[in-house]
């Protein structure tokens, strides 16, 4: 059975959302096709599941390109296809395709695909399959790319089974001082260059929220260079004591953090999909997201959470106050791994089964 050569930024050993999304795809495909991962970066060493092997990350960009070419060229009869895990790697996948004939699968995570990247050579990559995590990302990609829309499909993010309802964690409640509060939570990187997640909008809204729900507390989880700015916004609004920055939370603590909160809010304008919505909802939290980006998919057009116009403060206030009174989360199990894996395998079967020598 021929294998899949995966060109990704990071995967096993990586901590970010991209690494997780790549791992989810490969674990789904490993049941039907061996996956050979070549990461650009590898932060640590991590075990790979059966059917997936990960190569050592080359030290430099040029070494990565050379390694990818050498591997694809030497293994052009061994590989069925190339998986390209980031749009910025698409020129490499395109070049490999042109020189070896190997078809490639381009996976789009979000904001990177909303505008043509300057380094992108041409706007019509010969990708046999393009998957986008959300309708919004797909639409933005198709607005500049010449890829046939029929070859551009959706493969939404999925979430791990460990995100499930459970009791509040006494340990976390104590650690972060959550007792006696109605906790509004946002999890995400605090980046000054990407202020789209809407932390500042929610901080500005806190005085009005506190008028209606005095015990409200806004907990911001995540590290990054934008914390001083957000702290200054909180101070200016006079809500410093009601906004708590808890820094980056270890991955293993995330389910308990969700379970120890009352409402997940992220009025973002730049989500490719918003996997955190799924994780929060799967842990039993009501969720609120923006309707102008990929969040609409994670919230299933409002079935799995409340969608708001992120710039409309009145609408956001109404949703937050309503959400704090809400009991029980909406069902997001449709995004759980079995459906995701089935869909990923079906796409492989449709587009690449002719080369892999295996049934889908």
């Amino acid at each position, binding site marked *: 059975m021929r294998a899949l050569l995966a060109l990704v930024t990071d995967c096993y050993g990586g901590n970010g959302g991209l690494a997780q999304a790549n791992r989810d795809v490969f674990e789904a495909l490993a049941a039907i096709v061996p996956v050979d991962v070549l990461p650009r970066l590898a932060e640590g060493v991590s075990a790979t599941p059966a059917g997936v092997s990960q190569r050592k990350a080359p030290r430099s960009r040029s070494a990565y390109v050379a390694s990818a070419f050498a591997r694809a060229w030497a293994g052009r009869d061994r590989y069925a296809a190339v998986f390209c895990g980031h749009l910025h790697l698409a020129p490499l996948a395109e070049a490999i395709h042109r020189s070896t004939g190997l078809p490639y699968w381009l996976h789009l995570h979000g904001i990177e695909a909303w505008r043509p990247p300057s380094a992108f050579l041409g706007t019509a990559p010969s990708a046999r399959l393009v998957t986008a995590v959300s309708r919004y990302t797909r639409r933005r990609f198709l607005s500049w790319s010449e890829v046939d829309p*029929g070859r551009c499909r959706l493969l939404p993010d999925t979430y791990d089974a460990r995100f499930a309802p459970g009791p509040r964690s006494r340990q976390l409640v104590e650690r972060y001082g959550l007792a006696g509060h109605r906790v509004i939570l946002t999890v995400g990187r605090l980046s000054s260059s990407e202020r789209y997640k809407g932390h500042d909008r929610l901080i500005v809204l806190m005085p009005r929220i506190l008028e209606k729900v005095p015990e409200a507390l806004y907990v911001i989880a995540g590290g990054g260079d934008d914390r001083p700015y957000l702290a200054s916004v909180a101070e200016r609004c006079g809500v410093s004591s009601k906004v708590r920055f808890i820094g980056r939370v270890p991955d293993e603590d995330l389910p308990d953090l969700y379970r120890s909160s009352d409402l997940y809010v992220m009025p973002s304008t730049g989500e490719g999909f918003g996997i955190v919505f799924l994780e929060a909802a799967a842990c039993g939290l009501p969720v609120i997201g923006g309707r102008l980006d990929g969040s609409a998919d994670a919230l299933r057009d409002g079935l799995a959470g409340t969608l708001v116009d992120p710039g409309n403060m009145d609408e956001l206030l109404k949703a937050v106050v309503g959400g704090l009174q809400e009991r029980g989360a909406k069902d997001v199990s449709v995004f759980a791994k079995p459906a995701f894996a089935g869909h990923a395998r079906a796409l492989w079967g449709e587009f690449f089964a002719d080369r892999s020598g295996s049934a889908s």
Partner: protein
Amino acid sequence: MCGIASIYNYHYAAPQIRREDLRVLREHLRHRGPDGEGEWYSDCGRVGLGHRRLSIIDLTDQGAQPCADELSRVVLVFNGEIYNHPELRRELELKGHRFRGRSDTEVLLRLYLEEGDRCWTRLRGMFAVVLWDARERCLKLVRDVHGIKPLYYADDGWRLCAASQVKALVGSRLVSHEKEPAGAAGYFLMGSVPEPFTLFREVRAVEPGQVLTVDERGARYSRRFGSVQGLWTDRPLESGAAPLAQAVRDSVRYHLVSDVPVMIYLSAGVDSRAIAALAVQEKSVSLSGLTLAFDEPGPEAPDESGAAAAFAERIGLAHRTHRLSGADFFASQSAFLDAMDQPTLDGANIYHISRAARLAGYKVALSGVGGDELFAGYPSFRDVPLWAKLLWLPSSIPGAGDVWRRVSPWVRRWLGRGSAKVDGLLSQPRGLTGAYLLKRGLFMPWELPDLLGKEMAVEGLRRLRLPERLSEALRRTGRSDRVRVACLEMCFYLRHQLLRDADWAGMAHGVEVRTPLVDTVLTAQVAALNASGPAPAKADLASAAGLSVDRPKSGFTLPVRRWIESDRALPECKEADRKLGRTQHWSRRWAYAVYRRSAR
């Protein structure tokens, strides 16, 4: 002939469909089917089919749609007519199929159940079909080979909505309103929006002669069952070519299958007269002729009513003339442009004659559209190959195109005549495609930034790739110029302009316009005759119908020019005058006015 609509929330993450969404979509097609409505939803709640009915065959409830078999294995909605449905029915009955009514829809359903996707090549007619196959758990969208009937879809990655008209999809608010620059660029280059593009990025036309299959993974073309090029080049006729007279007579006879009276749109030209002459020999259905005449005839739109009436009397066809005045035209101008599904340079003629047909109580009409493409009636059949040869050498000289583009406006000014298209003589691709773009071109590519803005024009031309699309249409068409120009005319001008106009303009009044000269069997017969002997021409069509070619080719035109230059013209016409200048050809100003109106 009807309006069809569907919604399929195919992706596993998508919620169930909302019934009110399908109803809203369907009601945007109400004008296409005033006689009834229907809807069907799958048990899984993810598929909905909607229908507006114009009853023509089997006027009872048995002909209602959506149409399902007794086990609901297959459910379909269908727009068009299957002219050979009686013989297909007999064949299916011999195989044990039992029918509830007499409709062609039920025959289509049973034929699909019997033969699956092989059935599409068995159909003689015009059709756009959406069917749900519960056995394969997939939705299929299918159009006839010529693309006579329209079918558009919008796929957002979760949900695929389909409808007979672009305006229904966009008006339903179920699809993105983001503009498609390629659609706008194509319109200005050719005078109609070239498929698969529309003016909206998410909305596309289903490819004629192909099956678009949608399942839980998404939408893809799963089968090509025919093409215009294939009709001209691939299809061996088992029994050899029939005499032309028999082939045309056959097509006319098939196109008369109807349970309601049939109107013939009659001008003084060969195509419509040939159809009328052959139709009156069939006694199967009540027939009448209709000619549009103008209160203010002129050289570009002569009054043909006298000649048409005399001809009708000679062949024993009941006939009436509808006189259209400038006042009528102005009174209906807004309604006409609002009914227009996609901007088009043409359509006023068929809109007004269909209105007259409906007022006379008719809902089926035969039109001579397609005759010029099939029998090489256009000057393009002579000019395009000639221009291609003449321009080959000068176009090969590096830089000649740019130099000529700079010089040509001065030459035109000095001569005091000549179209702006002349500037592009040496700037088009070499060969037939370039010559065709010149012949059929309305504006030249370098004029688009003025009309659309630079960014949209550049993006539109890049996405449209019109020369490449024309070249694609010429692949595997052999060496015959006649066949190659016929393929271009049938795949572009006929499909994107004439047939689209016949559809929306007829359906705006609930009139089904049938096209006996756009027929797969007839095209294959003419192709076979063309391959085995002298190319069939208009004179042969005339003699096949027992006519003499006693007058030069006449179009079916309206004096639109005088009307749009009137003081009573729409504000968009005045805007076009200001934008382009009154010295520009009226068709360019009209095209701009129509586009501005559609972009409101």
